[in-house]
């Protein structure tokens, strides 16, 4: 049942992503296809704003699966990620048992630590059967949590099972589709990566970025979109602390359309630079003359291409 909806080749994976306006390159589609076919988690690394999280979202919508998201942060622990007992209800159950004169301690314990009192957090939810097929589990920004949590994930990602001491081991009948993302603010341990298929999401080339831009900002003028992409591409070649990602390109393009800009000029670029660059050092580096030089370069390049 589930296999029907999964793509059957690398090309159909590309088409599937394109259906949801996600323009991927072939290498990403290959890894994604393999991850789906082999039932392995996919580990996606890359700079901020290149569409890592989007992969999971697009997968969930196109395959019609539930998206379960686990946002990682420092201090993330089992009670927030896996399960928690409903203590209030448990206390009441114990009191009620006492009031009814139930004296068998083992019996109370068995009743209290049962499925009824279990609050399921994302990881446990992801292992549960779903009528729409196995859900998409997005473990976002794993580099934000600490090594201890990574070690815990090993069991989940290798065998798709979780051990709850009071209940036993919960194993997924159909493993979920797992996407793990990282911004590389710290190295994730090799043991975890070994269990996954790895992919580095880079900045797209001009041609693909233009496609993405036109898909995501439909109302944009042809000339402006070309200029925006060429300018951002040129900007990425500069020695910046943080190069603008695809997300920034899209933000900038929609900002420019909001401002009714039809073609780039140095003044507009300087005014809206804050959308593209997020570090003060980078913004000061790109002063008026530098912007003008870059723009001239972009214009002559575009003219040559025509």
């Amino acid at each position: 049942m589930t296999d029907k909806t999964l793509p059957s080749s690398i090309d159909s994976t590309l088409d599937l992503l394109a259906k949801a306006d996600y323009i991927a390159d072939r290498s990403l589609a290959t890894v994604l296809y393999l991850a789906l076919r082999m039932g392995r988690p996919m580990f996606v690394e890359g700079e901020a704003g290149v569409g890592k999280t989007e992969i999971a979202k697009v997968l969930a919508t196109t395959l019609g699966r539930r998206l379960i998201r686990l946002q990682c942060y420092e201090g993330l622990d089992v009670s927030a990620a896996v399960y928690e007992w409903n203590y209030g209800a448990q206390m009441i159950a114990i009191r009620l048992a006492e009031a009814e004169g139930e004296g068998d301690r083992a019996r109370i314990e068995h009743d209290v630590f049962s499925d009824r009192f279990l609050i399921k957090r994302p990881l446990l939810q992801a292992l549960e059967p779903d009528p729409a097929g196995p859900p998409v589990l997005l473990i976002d920004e794993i580099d934000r949590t600490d090594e201890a949590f990574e070690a815990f994930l090993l069991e989940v990602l290798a065998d798709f099972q979780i051990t709850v001491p009071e209940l036993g081991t919960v194993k997924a009948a159909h493993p979920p589709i797992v996407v793990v993302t990282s911004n590389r603010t710290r190295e994730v341990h090799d043991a975890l990566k070994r269990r996954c298929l790895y992919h580095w999401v880079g900045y797209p080339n001009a041609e693909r970025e233009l496609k993405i831009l036109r898909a995501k900002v439909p109302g944009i003028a042809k000339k402006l979109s070309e200029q925006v992409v060429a300018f951002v591409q040129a900007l990425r070649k500069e020695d910046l602390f943080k190069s603008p990602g695809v997300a920034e390109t899209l933000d900038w393009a929609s900002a420019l359309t909001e401002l009714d800009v039809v073609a780039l000029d140095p003044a507009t670029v300087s005014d809206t630079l804050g959308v593209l660059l997020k570090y003060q050092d980078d913004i000061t580096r790109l002063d008026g003359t530098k912007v003008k030089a870059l723009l001239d370069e972009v214009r002559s390049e575009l003219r040559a291409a025509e």
Partner: protein
Amino acid sequence: MAASEGRLAENILYFARALRAAGIPVGPGAVLDALEALSVAHVGTRDDFYWTLHAVFVKRHEHTGLFDQAFRIFFRKRGYIEKMIASMLPETMPGEHKAPPPGAQRIQEALFSGLNEREQAKSDVEIDARLTVSDQELLRKKDFAQMTAAEIAAAKDAIARLALPLDEVRTRRLAPSRHGHLIDIRRTLRASMKAGGAVIDLKYLGPRVKEPPIVALLDISGSMSEYTRLFLHFLHAVTDARKRVTTFLFGTRLTNVTRAIRQRDPDEALAACSANVADWSGGTRIASSLHVFNKQWARRVLGQGAVVLLITDGLERDADDTLAFEIDRLHRSCKRLIWLNPLLRFQAFEARAKGVQTILPHVDELRPIHNLESMKELVRALSGAPAKGYNPKDLLRQVA
């Protein structure tokens, strides 16, 4: 069919070995994964073949370049991949097999031969020195630069025995604690179950503490050459004792030697370091090395309240605005920046040199590190709050 599959498996195995020789950690599990991936992927083109293997074998972004090279060399023969792809298709006729491609064995040898050369760089002879108490006293105060080979060997031993700091930072993770202030309801309930729910004995949680990461930036230029080996021993000892230590060497270029220095035996670790570094005892370019560090590494290794040890004499020829800018950025992105300068051993050290003057305003602490005594003090300082008397601003005031 079985024979052709065997040949594919063999070739993937050889390719995995070549990758291992090139420095990409590829386990036997990855070979099995690769075979599985190839069988499900219905590979049709060279690109698909490439990305399928890439997905399985490459686990770090840095390895993409190596993989690319190895792939090109290994599958150089024109039409070779097409043959491999054809061999995976079920309709391939048996009987078409030729002898194993001649390229595979040769390239494998070529890739392997480089390895033996690297291994021959063996460490120097260890000298066993037993010293009397007074000798040890002398040794502690003696400048590393004036030590004989035997004394250096003894110093290495002493460094290995240094008790390492138990520096701690609070994390946001909680752990059971007697004096914590949050009720651990999970443990509380379990404990009260023991008494049949009659008594509720409150259990508490407190913040968990953890050692902050250390990042060492060690200058290996000519002017520091007398010290670098012993500092590396020091860093090796620190790396051994603590989990999160990252070590970089810089002269004219920045090199990450963390993996090399993690080897158990200090001399092997040092040999591995030297094999990695090209600019041993050359000139210094502090500014450009720091620039590379800030851009490529700072965001990856300076998380969670890292302490940075900058070990250099600060003698930079072209100290200009970029040096000030980079050191300022480094300072802003870590919790504590400690500058260890062997030149501080001289009583009359003054912040006259341009490079020193540029760096000083941006460091939290300036310490000497020229003998065992000062190394011990550093270890003590790492475990506590910034010590008095090492305020870099004092030196600046003296000059002014």
